[in-house]
């Protein structure tokens, strides 16, 4: 079992109150990229919420552009922003010491990739 720790400074963003059906995730990633010019990965999607990782960008910058993000959502096919659309989770991933990562094949972390 080999384990690699990759540098990835990211902010986790969850948006609720949207309607999702027939979304092509890379189209959303491109739209969000057009705002921030930073890599974006859609990591979790339900019919009414989105979770994304935005790399190399502090949460403060995302808060500042919150309305811009919500507006952009409606421009993405398969995605509809509603009156209750809001950012419900916004947190910067905290660094841990490599030695704190539990070794072993059974270990899987809490909150990474869904897709």
């Amino acid at each position: 079992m080999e384990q690699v720790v990759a540098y990835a400074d990211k902010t986790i963003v969850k948006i609720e109150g949207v309607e999702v059906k027939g979304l092509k995730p890379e189209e959303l990633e491109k739209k969000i990229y057009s705002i921030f010019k930073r890599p974006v990965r859609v990591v979790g999607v339900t019919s009414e919420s989105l979770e994304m990782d935005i790399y190399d960008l502090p949460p403060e910058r995302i808060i500042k552009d919150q309305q811009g993000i919500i507006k952009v959502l409606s421009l993405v096919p398969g995605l509809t922003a509603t009156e209750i659309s809001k950012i419900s989770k916004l947190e910067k991933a905290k660094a841990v010491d490599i030695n704190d990562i539990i070794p072993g094949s059974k270990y899987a972390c809490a909150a990474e990739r869904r897709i």
Partner: protein
Amino acid sequence: MDKIMIIPTGDEICEGILIDTNSPKIMGRLIENYPAAFITRKNPVRDKKNLIISAINQSVEENYQLILTIGGSGGGGKSTDSLADDYSHESILKLASDYETISIYGYNGHLWSKIVVASIDKSLIITLPGPQIEALAALDAALYSINKSLTKKEVCKHIVDAVISKYPQKEEDCETRSSCSRK
């Protein structure tokens, strides 16, 4: 490579919430590399370990030489309600005794992606991450490595390097913890 199976996974794909745009792109790259191959895209499999195992088993029994699973390669929602569980890697590790695997963690300690390259009978099975940019990078690395007849361990390392290369990185922040393999 004569017979190749693509297995997309994920409840959100099955329900049409997300469109599986990965499979056609992966299919295209496979056709470029193996123009004479018989390439199949299986109907998407839900995030259930038994269903993924069944899909892989069936593909092995049908003598697919290369089986690619898409998605379900991270830590998922094992302790976070907002994310679904990821089972592709676990399913393959449960089935195969001959494999190589490398886990990529974010610097926050979260499992980012677990790449598995395994053999069962005459089938080579590889996990591809769900985000498209990673999936295609992983696929290109896998095809390059396979065409060079590299070992499973080398294939796995090439895939991991390709996936990591798609993110902003600082050299000093990349560390390798330990390594071993199992046959």
